[in-house]
């Protein structure tokens, strides 16, 4: 059995147990449990990549795309949250499939944090950006067009903030209710809105072009790791 399936089962078991812990009057440490689940999910994707990456080509590709998006994160740090990295991760996942998308997102967070500072938020950032890449691969199959891509990008601006905020909410706020969750999200609403606007602008202005560049590269070298997605649709036909 693949190790990632084993990890998935472990995540389901721990998650279900956590779900029923309050009913059984067992006081769970939510901050630790959430971190454990997120790390398990990241490791599961790592194992998935281990199985999907057949040669050095896939490793080099994922590393390079992650580097570009990490580099794009650092110089933009002066303008809060107007970063092109989410958009680059979405484009990478869109073209190269869910596993590559996750890896690019996870690498972006981990590697850029060597420059910006590691912390307990690192796994959550890896997870959030990784999921942005994964979902981009599936959004492609819906064939939404440019407007859909823009909305999708804006949505990830907020989702990213929510995922990263979750740990802070779980660890430092009492009581853990929907009300306090929403209140905590309000705290970062301004940053998330900027992030969402940036994503929408980047995807609207340069999404088609970037996807075309990546798509052309994929076809030119016939890179593996991507047989789970459908062949290209509207975007590249416009160009070629």
């Amino acid at each position, binding site marked *: 059995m693949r190790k990632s399936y084993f990890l998935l089962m472990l995540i389901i078991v721990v998650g279900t147990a956590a779900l029923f812990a309050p009913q059984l009057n067992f006081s769970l*440490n939510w*901050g*630790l449990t959430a971190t454990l689940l997120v790390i398990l999910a990241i*490791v599961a994707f*790592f*194992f998935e*990549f*281990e199985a999907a*990456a057949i*040669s*050095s*080509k896939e*490793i*080099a*590709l*994922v*590393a*390079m795309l*992650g*580097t*570009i998006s990490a*580099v794009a994160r*650092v*110089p933009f740090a002066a303008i809060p949250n107007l970063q*092109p990295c989410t958009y*680059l991760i979405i484009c990478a996942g869109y073209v190269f499939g869910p596993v590559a998308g996750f*890896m690019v997102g996870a*690498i972006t967070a*981990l*590697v850029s*944090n*060597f*420059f*910006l*500072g*590691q*912390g*307990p938020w690192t796994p959550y950032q890896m997870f959030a950006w990784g999921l942005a890449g994964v979902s981009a691969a599936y959004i492609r199959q819906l064939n939404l067009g440019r407007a859909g891509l823009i909305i999708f990008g804006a949505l990830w601006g907020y989702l990213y903030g929510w995922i990263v905020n979750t740990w*802070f909410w779980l*660890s*430092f*706020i*009492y*009581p853990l209710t929907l*009300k*306090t969750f*929403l*209140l*905590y999200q309000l*705290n970062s609403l301004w940053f998330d809105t900027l992030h969402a606007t940036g994503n929408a*602008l*980047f995807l609207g*202005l*340069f999404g088609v*072009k*970037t996807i075309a*560049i*990546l798509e052309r*590269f994929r076809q030119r*070298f016939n890179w593996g790791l991507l047989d789970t997605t459908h062949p290209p649709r509207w975007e590249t036909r416009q160009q070629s």
Partner: protein
Amino acid sequence: MINFRYRLKGTPVHALNPFAKLAWVASIFVLSLLFNHPVYLLLLFLSTLPLVITAQIWRQWVSLMKFTLYLCLAIIIINALVSSHGTHLLWQAPFQLPLVGTPAITLEAIFFGAGMCLRLLAIISAFALLTFTVHPDDIMLAMLKMKLPYKSVLAISLSTRFIPTLIEDAARISDVQRSRGLELDRGRLTQRLKSRMAIIIPLLSNSLDRTVQVAEAMEARAFGSGQKRSFYKEIALKKPDIPALIMGLIPLLLGIFIWWRGMGDYQYYPALARLGFTGLEGTLLALLILSLCLMLPLGLARKRIEVD
């Protein structure tokens, strides 16, 4: 020029084995989440300070703490606004807020917020040591030792290595574009984004070509040909490092034992409990903090061995 936050300085903390430091940071992280007793959290925070001072990262630490204080403020305000579990009412608002209702600030909620701030300070302070004194390569080595899949770690490691190269590329491209009349900081928002992308898009196509070279170089070195890969540099655990590694893990085990015995759990609501300790709890807590602080003399000893 952008660099790693990590700097090699010849301090005792830098001389410590990276795995020991990782274990130590993990201990502080887990323990400060397990305990909610303000005295425990304060002591955990204070026990990071000797290492911070010895590692000569004081200035970076202070700027990090300024950022943390902003988060602390948010934690105190939100806890004070939402919690209605306290009994000692300090202030009842004469107005209503959406989502919150009528804010009623209680002594207990303020204390809880303060306790959580100590928790955050302890965690951030411990992670500062990780960021500033552990080389990224050592973190990846630790990931390998923890049996994480090799190819993923290799991808992360490759990416770390390519950051400086790509930053150089980006600087060159922006010089070229500027010489063609691109103005980076002019115009409206969309105009600015467009001029940024005049750097990102060439960088993208450039590095995709580089990807092919990297892959070919790896193939040329017979990557993936053997079942078991070999390393240029094998980092063996040296004898002087073993006590440090054990000392990194002892606080974690001791702390989990204390937590399992039901200590370190402070009751903030409905009314603040007494802060005192029983003799046993005090002894165990002292042992815990002592075991956390023992990292420093071990670093000094390690440094001396290095000098000899």
